[in-house]
């Protein structure tokens, strides 16, 4: 008994000693130090960022600390950081994250940085997303674009053509369903319709909504628009659920990025909507599959597609801590945007990330890792430059609504309900409409 207690006490003392050593660093005091947060937790991406940050810090003779913050807890962390006044100097986040920070008045406009680098070199749609009140609030790093990634070999085998309308798409998806081992059960499904409640359901749905011309907010006027387009929204939802029932694995109601990408790479679905991440995954897990993969644009209902879904990453600079510190941050950003560095960052996730500058894009195309996908690059960059692409809730430019959509699950809840037969699609659209209006009112306050 006594010995037990002694051991316990000794152990407790050791642990409390250890407790005193763990402290976190603070940048606000040091004028020569920048703290940078990035949401990119994947090894390959984080490594490139760390390397570039170190290089630039060395050039400028300052100190840099990079913190990786996983996307799932980004909003909580930002809220905490804002509350305690410890906002990072620079943040590398997606467009919604930038919208959130801008709404909290935590970041500075960066038009001077963009002009300094040459505004014309930036693809204009990238700048549009980050614009609000006539200013640009982030330097776009790269963007991603939703396309249908598909098995070219299976299309060839079954003699299928790239579909141009919703009906054609549905027929192709159905035709791709295959019972490989002839046991009466489908082993290869035509088209994955992932509906995970966190973001994924909304992303799948929005591709259909945009292709039909339904928006959350009107891209021109900025007014709430979803509520006036409910009829079309119901049509898009019905179509999506039909695709799910006819050609998607039953459990895909709970699928997130991980599951549907794996399914394509491992050969259990033949098509899926994705932002090109399947290429990197195939290279890592199933290299034989890479040559079979290709992409095309998800079609519009009758062939003409109004818009598509896309988002991307941007660097934003905190407006806190005085002009000198803000200038230091901007100088740092400027140096990150040599064409080589911009291309290298995008290439750390090839075919997923597409650089925001023409000069960087030129370097990007010549890289061996994307050599096999020149047609896909053409089609995706063409969509970036010439068609309309939006991120949910940010059709007219930066808007906090998108971060509210990302951190809540009402889209997923409503859509899954329809897939599982517990709601009608009109019901689901009504619920989404009501929730969106509530969120908008909520942001306004």
């Amino acid at each position, binding site marked *: *008994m006594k010995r*037990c*207690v002694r051991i*316990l006490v000794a*152990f*407790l003392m050791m*642990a*409390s000693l*250890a*407790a005193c050593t*763990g*402290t*976190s660093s603070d940048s606000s005091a040091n004028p020569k130090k920048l703290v940078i947060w990035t949401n990119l*937790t*994947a090894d390959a991406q984080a490594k490139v960022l760390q390397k570039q940050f170190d290089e630039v810090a060395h050039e400028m003779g300052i100190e840099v600390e990079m*913190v*990786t*913050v*996983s996307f*799932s*807890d980004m909003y*909580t*962390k930002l809220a*905490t*950081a804002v*509350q*305690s006044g410890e906002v990072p100097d620079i943040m590398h986040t997606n467009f919604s994250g930038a919208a959130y920070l801008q709404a909290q008045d935590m970041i500075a406009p960066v038009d001077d940085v963009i002009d300094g680098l040459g505004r014309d070199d930036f693809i204009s749609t990238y700048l549009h997303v980050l614009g609000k009140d006539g200013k640009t609030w982030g330097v776009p790093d790269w963007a991603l674009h939703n396309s249908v990634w598909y098995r070219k070999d299976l299309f060839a085998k079954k003699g299928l053509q790239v579909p141009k309308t919703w009906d054609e798409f549905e027929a192709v998806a159905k035709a791709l369903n295959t019972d490989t081992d002839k046991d009466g059960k489908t082993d290869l499904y035509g088209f994955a319709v992932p509906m*995970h409640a*966190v*973001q*994924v359901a909304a992303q799948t749905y929005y591709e259909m909504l945009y292709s039909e011309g339904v928006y959350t907010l009107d891209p021109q006027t900025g007014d709430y628009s979803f509520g006036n387009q409910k009829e079309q929204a119901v049509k898009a939802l019905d179509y999506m659920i039909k695709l799910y029932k006819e050609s998607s694995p039953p459990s895909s109601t709970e699928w*997130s*990025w*991980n599951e549907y990408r794996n399914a394509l790479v491992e050969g259990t679905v033949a098509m899926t909507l994705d932002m090109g*991440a399947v290429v990197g995954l195939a290279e890592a897990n199933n290299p034989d599959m890479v040559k079979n993969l290709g992409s095309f644009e998800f079609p519009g209902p009758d062939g003409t597609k109004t818009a598509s879904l896309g988002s991307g990453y941007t660097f934003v600079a905190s407006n806190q801590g005085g002009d000198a510190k803000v200038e230091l941050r901007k100088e740092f950003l400027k140096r990150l945007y040599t064409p080589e560095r911009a291309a290298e960052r995008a290439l750390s996730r090839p075919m997923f990330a597409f650089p925001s500058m023409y000069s960087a894009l030129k370097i990007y195309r010549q890289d061996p890792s994307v050599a096999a996908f020149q047609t896909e690059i053409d089609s995706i960059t063409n969509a970036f430059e010439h068609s309309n692409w939006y991120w949910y809730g940010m059709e007219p430019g930066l808007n906090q609504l998108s971060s509210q959509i990302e951190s809540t699950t009402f889209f997923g809840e409503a859509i899954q309900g329809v897939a599982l037969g517990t709601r009608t699609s009109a019901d689901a659209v009504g619920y989404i409409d009501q929730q969106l209006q509530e969120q908008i009112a909520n942001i306004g306050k």
Partner: protein
Amino acid sequence: MDTRTRVIGPRLFSRLGFWLLVLAVLAVVSFPLVWMAASSLKPSEELFKTPPSVLPNAPTLTWYVEAFRDSAALRYSLNSLVIATATTLICVVLGTLGAYGLARFEYRGRKPIIVGVLLAYCIPPIMLMTPLYRLISGAGLNSTYVGVIVGHFTITFPFCLWLLISFFEKIPKEIEESASVDGASIFTIFFRIDLPLCMPGILSAGIMVFILSWNEYLLASVLVSSDTMKTLTVGLANYISSTEINWGVVMAIGTATTIPIIVLFTAVQKYFVEGLTAGSVKG
């Protein structure tokens, strides 16, 4: 408490039936743990084979190597250890004092305090989450050991106190009354008489607090935003992200999180049983 002389009357099952039932129960109880441990030892081909085999044919430690090769998992373990230990230390010291004061003396205001402790014991973490988050973040203690320790202390202290009160109540008052007549001060009596007598109780309360803190997820996930300060449970939950799930690594870290707790628990289960049966429900 001698099981040999205890009589419980007629039996429902024959000896054989009884042990068959026991075996079935053991199978159900051990299934998730055995499956987790077995999965953590299966190489990739076996992990993703249908139908799966129960035990690994070619056991391998690669998932463990992969899990603990990057320092994050080790760091999470250290954080959990520090936080659980500090919470235990503070809870036990303050709990012992409080329990002694509440169990051994009669005075006005004693009952309301005991009721307060009991109420606090019933307040669930989810209700303290919002105010604690605001208070701790507001004080700049987010992502610090102190912040999480305060959070864990809040949810474990009432339980610890409640457990200890029942232990102190069991000590016969006569022992200390004789000392009191001899003129010993309240502190002398406490340190020299009650404390040694209550050591098993204190130990069991400490273990309970340690386990509660080690296993706690909600407050730790809310109160920590920096990656290096995460506890093992929060870190573990993050291994299942929507973009990547490495089941082998997840099972390995899950097993590594669970085993120390089971070992610790088995070593001291006697006090644990004593504590739980003494403190939680009376009568």
